[in-house]
């Protein structure tokens, strides 16, 4: 009793700041002793009508014996690029173009993964992402910069020859700027 000093002790779960996250866990079918009866009935009604049948069907489907057979990842050999092709050799240019398109897809995926990593870091850090996600951001920036330099404004009909010419013009411009700075 209260007059004998029994105040029930410190709060067990409901307003315990250490277990704040746990107090807000409403696991249907799990431990709900820290909740009130209204919430218990709601969770129990959901659990027994929806959750249990659905998980039973899901587990039955998963437990079905499936014949295990493999599938493989296709490996492409590297062919000589567009820079090693004779101007009249159309077959070499075709193969180089196919390789260019495959590398384009790979670079798109690499950029997507870098961006996803940065976004995940931002979401986890919150308002402190300016400080804690610098590495991810720098990695994304360098990847995006390289991608823009190589595939930047080629457009839908971009092919290996156009990318090669773009590289050529970029190198010429860099050389001219270097000469200007020297003089």
């Amino acid at each position: 009793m209260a007059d004998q000093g029994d105040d029930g002790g410190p709060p067990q779960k409901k307003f315990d700041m250490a277990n704040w996250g746990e107090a807000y866990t409403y696991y249907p079918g799990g431990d709900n002793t820290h909740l009130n009866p209204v919430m218990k009935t709601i969770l129990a009604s959901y659990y027994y009508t929806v959750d249990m049948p659905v998980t039973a069907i899901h587990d039955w489907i998963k437990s079905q014996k499936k014949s295990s057979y493999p599938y493989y990842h296709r490996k492409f050999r590297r062919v000589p690029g567009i820079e090693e092709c004779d101007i009249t050799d159309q077959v070499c240019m075709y193969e180089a173009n196919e390789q260019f398109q495959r590398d384009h897809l790979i670079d798109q995926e690499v950029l997507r993964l870098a961006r996803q990593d940065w976004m995940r870091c931002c979401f986890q850090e919150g308002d402190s992402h300016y400080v804690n996600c610098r590495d991810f951001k720098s990695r994304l920036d360098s990847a995006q910069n390289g991608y823009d330099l190589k595939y930047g404004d080629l457009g839908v009909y971009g092919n290996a020859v156009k990318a090669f010419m773009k590289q050529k013009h970029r190198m010429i411009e860099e050389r001219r700027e270097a000469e200007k700075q020297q003089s």
Partner: protein
Amino acid sequence: MAANFLRLLQRGGFQFHFSPKGGIQNSLQLRVSPKNCKGQKRNITGNPERYPGADFNYPKPNKFFWATPPRYHEKLFLRDVAKYYALTGIPALIIIMFINTFIGPAELSEIPEDYEPEEYEYHEHPITRFIVRNMMTPYQENYEKMCAKIALETEKMEWRQKQKMVNYLMQERGDGLYYYIPMTPTEVIDYSPKSDPDQ
């Protein structure tokens, strides 16, 4: 089914037209019954003080039962559409469910040494594998056919260029209009079957 569809077209069904001024009776060319007005029970064009955004204001008949065209043929049409969608969709979904539960997709694994996988072994889903195995040409075959076609066409291109150059030079130099026709020399031809008429 087609007759009902024609009746629907004649009636001018499925008139979904949105008017920014508002009001279902403003939106449709035909009248609708009040039960289909979804909360708008009055013809707003008849009350300009309350609804000033109406197109124009004309005297409103204070009616409750409006003469509306029937929605029956729209229902029949939709039933026909659902019937034909379900006739192929439900068996297809059941078959696909059974394939996904009992056969299942493949597992990604490393290519073993000294083994070249078939074209269908590069795909995951069993239906995709079936289609690739039975109905499609391999990727490498298409690639090489394209390379062969390109090589043939480049060769033809080169020979056409040479022919044009030859014609131009023959025209320019005028040193003879003859072409080289390959012929076997007479020393190696065997005339013995022709030399004896009574063979």
